[in-house]
């Protein structure tokens, strides 16, 4: 109420240089104390920002939710017999439990790998991620054992290395650590960021 009194006192002062009323019919706008304007603007900003800030915080949740750096588990993918040592890559699905936001899916396909054993060193198992390191398309294996990406024509040798200078992929196919247990091949399945020269695991 004393505010109204203050307004009254302020009325005669007019700032012609400052914004004038659009119609201009009822005289110039009264100059208000700086404090009133500051307060009004501050409160206005606060009430507008708080709900938006809460929402933004929630929306940025994926940045906070990351898996530990402990390394992905080894997952049994195929038996040794399924990968004859002939140097040809073979495609296998990776089956694991998957947590998709609120849903827990027990034992569902979470990705795929190429497994390959060479004639020379049959005890060595090469596991390659099927995702193209260029921009993430699914890489195809060709009959001669090399790889080709259907999206931007990245090409890779059968050991995963870049096959041609014109290949747009910044790095070769991503190898994954493997282990054998009795006759089972286990792969440490892990996704990597694409488009980078370095292999950066997606946690």
């Amino acid at each position: 109420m004393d505010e109204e009194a203050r307004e009254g006192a302020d009325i005669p002062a007019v700032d012609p240089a400052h914004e004038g009323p659009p119609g201009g019919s009822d005289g110039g706008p009264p100059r208000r104390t700086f404090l009133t304007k500051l307060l009004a603007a501050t409160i206005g900003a606060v009430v507008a920002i708080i709900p938006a800030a809460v929402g933004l915080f929630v929306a940025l949740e994926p940045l906070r939710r990351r898996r530990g750096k402990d390394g992905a588990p080894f997952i049994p993918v195929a038996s040794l017999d399924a990968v004859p040592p002939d140097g040809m890559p073979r495609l296998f699905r990776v089956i694991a439990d998957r947590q998709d936001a609120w849903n827990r899916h027990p034992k569902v396909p979470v990705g795929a790998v190429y497994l390959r054993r060479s004639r020379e060193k049959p005890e060595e198992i090469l596991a390659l991620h099927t995702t193209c390191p260029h921009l993430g398309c699914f890489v195809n294996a060709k009959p001669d054992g090399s790889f080709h990406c259907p999206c931007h024509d990245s090409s890779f040798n059968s050991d995963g290395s870049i096959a041609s200078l014109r290949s747009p992929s910044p790095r070769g196919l991503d190898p994954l650590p493997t282990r054998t247990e009795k006759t089972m091949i286990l792969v440490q399945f892990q996704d990597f960021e694409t488009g980078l020269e370095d292999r950066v695991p997606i946690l």
Partner: protein
Amino acid sequence: MTTPLLRRLGDAVEQRTGLRRIVRALLYENIPGGSRWRYVWGSTLVFTFTVQLITGFFLWLGYSPSAQTAWESVYYLEHETAGGSLLRGIHHYTAQAMILLLVLHVLQVVIDGAYRAPRELNFWIGLILLLIVLALGLTGYLLPWDQKGYWATKVATNLTAMTPVVGEDMKRVVVGGAEYGHTTVTRFFAMHAGLLPFLMILFTALHVYLFRRHGIHVRRSPRAPDTTFWPDQVLKDGVACLAVLAAVLLLAAWQPAPLMAPASPSEPYSAARPEWYFLFLFQLLKLFPGKSTIWGAIYIPGLVLLFMALMPILGRWRLGHAFNVMFIFSLLGGAAFLTVMAVVQDRANEEYQLAVRGAEADAKRVRVLARDLGIPPAGAVTLLEADALTQGPKIFARHCAACHRHGGEDGLGKTPEEAPSASDLQGFASRQWLTGLLDPARIDTPHYFGATAFKDGDMVDFVKSTVAAYDPARARSLSMVTKALSAEAGLKSQRELDRRDAAEIETGRLLLESRRGDPPGLNCLRCHTFGENGKAGKGPDLTGYGSRDWLIDFISDPAHERFYSEENDRMPRYGAEEILDRRSVELVADWLRGEWYVPTEESALPPEGAPVVQAPEDRAPVAQPPVAQAPAAQPAVTEAPLAQPAVTEAPVEPAPAKTPESASETEERRPEEDGAPSLPESGPVDFAAHVQPILETHCVKCHGSSGRKPKGELRLDTRENALKPGESGDPPITPGKSGESRVLRLIQSQDEEERMPPADIGRSLTPLEVSVLERWIDSGAPWPEGIVLRSRGS
């Protein structure tokens, strides 16, 4: 001084857009008579709506509209996303604030007569906005797809079906078919987040435009000089909005927006009520019996709205305006009265209060299950459907409580009016329960056989004459037989006791079968079957008495020759006559046996289902002093420590001094005594004190990260590793399920090759150590954050 460049840029924009003019027009609106607090209501409404648009968008980012994912996505936001609960709370309470502010706004307009020419049109637009806001509230209520929203929406949509002529078709279109499901959610969501906000923006813009055109409605001729909207009125509006926001934030922090159990058409929900601002309509409907419901549902609300639309016309006359004011006040008064009436009636309605508690227990329970077990793709509703703690008491109340009791109640916290005509099944087959059954003073009370045909049967006769006359030696035998019989049940709550008393139980089994000897046998096989021995038919088979299979078979067919044969007293053959499906029988059996998932960190949530179900006793921690079980007059046999196996527990002694009622009361809830030093007798064990030493001594040397390469990929050094599926797919530890946990299987394996730890590495685990791990896993395998185990070397 403004830089010329900036001003030139501003001028350029102004020339091309006229932006400056628009902003000025908005900010420098004339306010005749100066700014006032009473002008803030409209602005707070615009503000609350803006808050809803903002928070609504962010909620949208996480919401998945389908019957199988709506509840689940809201759960994820509410309980597993940081800040999600606050965001939802703001949206929830701002919606309610909006209703309140709207009422105040309408009230002010009517009282001031601000609906009169030239403002009639704007008044009507205001009424449309009011309806849109109510529709937003109604559609939003369903979206979490929980029991609350589901049943309230069912009622609301069924009301639309009452609309003459088009009602049923209208409902079908709104619901998206004949049944409530995916399409109901998608449709309500599209309305709530699409069409309704769009209309709201449209009509708000029109409303504000017309308001600006007509100017503020001034009540009296102004005494103070005119002012402009910015900054005086903006400041007042801002303060009002801040107050609203503060109230909303406080409410959201104090009481998060509710999320009940997921919607299920098969689960009764007697706690169904609309949001509070619709309570008056809800109550109104109760006043219209039978076919006249349509009056409460459609005609009266319709007429009220019609009358409100006519207010500007009526208000042209002085008397008409007075009538309008009277009308709006009596309308508000009536609504307030009906609301209070609804609340008062519900408060006094025990049935409703019980339903609310049950609904809250379900809501908490599903939260625990979703958190610890994960939500299967079929949706969270399946978690509750398969949960014995949730379903057991409900099935019991529906099918068993007409005759039986559970702790004197019907399973759902209600004490039936009629006296029980069969035994009280709380703690069935436990030592206490059997002790009472074999007590001459109690067997023929209503707690056991008192109200059944067995009251005059052979068993009651045997207990009352033979058992009553037992000498101390036979009384000791009875104690051991009781323990042996109870051990047949394999109750989770007695696992520790059964293990501790293994020797006594073994003796008890022999005594149960034998006739004489030392200690003297009890010759139960005269009537009962036990294992391979005895003759069937006269009494129930005692093989596996009270075990899961036994109980399921019994409930399925009590008249089977294994059980009561033709002597079965009125108990329905639930399975044999297909009264209950197999799953329901299993659920009620599991519940009676106390077999259900126990959460990891009980402290994270208030105790589950406390008002609804009573977990079978036996949970008493060891700290509790040993209870002198028998009345003081009785020369109680002191409980000797473990060394002395042939211990008699006092209640087994014939206790002629006891009155049946008081005895059964006190004994039934008496905690089992125990001599173990630091380990709690049953229930959860402490990780750091009991579990960690075992794992660190026996497991982590190989199954850890400490220097040596883990022999197996299986690692037990962190909780994450221990719960992670290994090479064979199974995780080493499945919280809550010791039976499914690989670790437990491997440490107990009979196969030398398979058993852990391998013979060349370390000794096998003792039964006590095994039981500690088992109990730890069954209690959800709590593992404090961040603890990494290091080998201690054995």
